């Protein structure tokens, strides 16, 4: 326990008597108390200390004394430290040995409303021009690739292919099967009222094959592989591995981005096909076990209602999603700053960019298909 008493000696000196233990976990004395005391005695010209019965101390007493010291120096009161224990004196000297550098302390800058809008606009322009630059570089790299000016090595491509195909199958199976199931459930509730439960097959078939299979595969890959790409490239940026490529004259876009874009644009349609199948199986489960439909009946109805056009639209969409997811992952990875937290932000941002791109692309493709009438 700590306690403080005050004595005033004859030469207008306030003696602060400190007793007991001044420890961070037990000290309940705040410096304001002592400063109030000093302020209340206007005639005091110096402050000294009596620490004969001080038992233990740590940073808490230093903090207290440092505040008193700075209060004294700003109010022309003499701070007498010679009666303090030697360790405390030396630490106090050390704390004031290097004076605070001017302009070092960070101030919280509060921008006005208009300044914030301006900054946001500037950031947006910068972000967009970076994105355009990246797209340009990728296009150039792609042209160089198909004209045979450089080639991608199998040893780099194969691990990426594996990462975005077989490794993703379990989660794609689960999600698309459940989506098919949900679609069938929701549709069945309405269709059963008209005795038209057989149309559940059409509903699930068309929805999965035309849009949902591609979108589900795309969203899963954005969360899984897009984030992984961003984290891989971001970590390489942090480790200076990307610098090492650049200084060797090897373009990071050609060496790191193109294999990933290629891998995902080839594999995404396959994953989409698989997701379509799993979705239809999910729908069939509802049809067979809940609506008492025959498996063959369900199969034939699906085959009759889904046109080949829908199938190709779905496959085309997934191809576009593959490119978008890979590009947004790689873009965020390459933009990554040099810290561990930046890698996390890059991964998060890659997923957000990927999903936003997928939704926008779906909307655009759907409208376009409507316009050209397929």
């Amino acid at each position, binding site marked *: 326990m700590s306690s403080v008493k005050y004595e005033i000696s004859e030469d207008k000196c306030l003696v602060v008597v400190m007793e007991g233990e001044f420890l961070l976990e037990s000290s309940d004395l705040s410096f304001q108390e002592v400063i109030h005391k000093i302020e209340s005695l206007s005639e005091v010209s110096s402050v000294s200390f009596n620490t004969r019965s001080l038992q233990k101390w740590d940073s808490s007493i230093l903090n207290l004394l440092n505040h008193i010291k700075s209060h004294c120096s700003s109010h022309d009161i003499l701070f007498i430290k010679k009666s303090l224990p030697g360790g405390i004196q030396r630490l106090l000297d050390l704390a004031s040995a290097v004076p605070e550098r001017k302009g070092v302390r960070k101030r919280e800058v509060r921008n006005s409303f208009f300044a914030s809008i301006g900054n946001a606009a500037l950031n947006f322009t910068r972000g967009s021009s970076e994105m355009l630059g990246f797209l340009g570089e990728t296009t150039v790299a792609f042209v160089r690739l198909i004209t045979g000016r450089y080639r991608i090595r199998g*040893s*780099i491509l194969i*691990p990426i292919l594996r990462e975005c195909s077989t490794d993703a199958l379990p989660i794609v199976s689960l999600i698309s099967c459940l989506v098919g199931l949900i679609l069938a459930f929701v549709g069945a509730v309405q269709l059963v009222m008209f005795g038209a439960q057989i149309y559940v097959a059409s509903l699930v078939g068309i929805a999965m094959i035309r849009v949902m299979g591609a979108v589900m595969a795309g969203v899963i890959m954005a969360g899984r592989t897009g984030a992984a790409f961003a984290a*891989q490239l971001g*970590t*390489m940026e942090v*480790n*200076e*591995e990307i*610098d*090492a*490529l*650049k*200084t*060797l*004259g*090897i373009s990071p876009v050609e060496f790191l981005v193109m294999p990933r874009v290629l891998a995902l644009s080839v594999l995404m349609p396959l994953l989409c096909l698989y997701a379509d199948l799993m979705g239809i199986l999910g729908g069939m489960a509802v049809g067979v076990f809940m609506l008492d439909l025959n498996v063959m009946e369900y199969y034939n109805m699906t085959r009759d209602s889904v046109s080949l056009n829908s199938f190709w639209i779905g496959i085309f969409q997934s191809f576009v999603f593959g490119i978008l997811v890979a590009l947004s992952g790689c873009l965020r990875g390459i933009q990554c700053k040099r810290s561990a937290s930046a890698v996390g932000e890059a991964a998060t941002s890659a997923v957000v960019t990927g999903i936003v791109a997928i939704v926008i692309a779906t909307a655009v493709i759907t409208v376009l298909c409507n316009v050209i009438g397929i």
Partner: protein
Amino acid sequence: MDIKRVHITVKDLTMAYGDLVVQQNLDFTVNHGDIFIIMGGSGCGKSTLLRHLVGLIQPAIGEIFYKDVNFWKASAEKRKALMKNFGILYQSGALWSSMTLAENIALPLEAYTDLSAAQIGELASLKLALVGLAGFEGYYPSEISGGMRKRAGLARAMALDPEILFFDEPSAGLDPVSARLLDDLILELSESLGSTIVVVTHELASIFAIGTNSVFLDPVTKTMIAQGDPRLLLERSEDQRVISFLTRGEGRGAES
């Protein structure tokens, strides 16, 4: 006095990140075969200068010449040809983590030579043996220690027998003996290959052991305040900041 051939010339270089000036008015030359030290206190922009020299950052003002070629005014192809002659050892080694050590060393060879896969493999093994890592061809960078990673990074930097080797804090994070061995390796390379070597460091022991020329960057005035052989600087410099740096703040009297 023998006339030395100038290899790198830096003219009136100002380095800046946006509005923040890191260093300004840098003027120095590096001769063929020099072991050139870039030194200075923490945060004075040593590594930034190195990143300018190797072409990773474009200077805000000023020019960098390699022999008589202006690096940033040259065409992209010319620049690429110049960069092919650089070997760079990054602070953390910067080995490509998805590739084995042999593949790391093979990549520059594959990019710039028409050698067969077998020849490239042999060369990679040779470079690894030169830095004392024979037999580690199949290891991934995450499977070896920090000192070994640095040496493997050096092997990669030497893959194309570059004319200039750049080292970013070679002894950072190494124990004194490994740091000493790396210094010896740098000296050996300089003598046997005749390469020009540029080293960023603040390790006094290395500075005096290997340096033949140097530039001293000051973080407060944001410019260079001394240049020349570090040993001569220690003897003759009049600048208190340089003396203090080269004697660990003890002053010249304490040294003798």
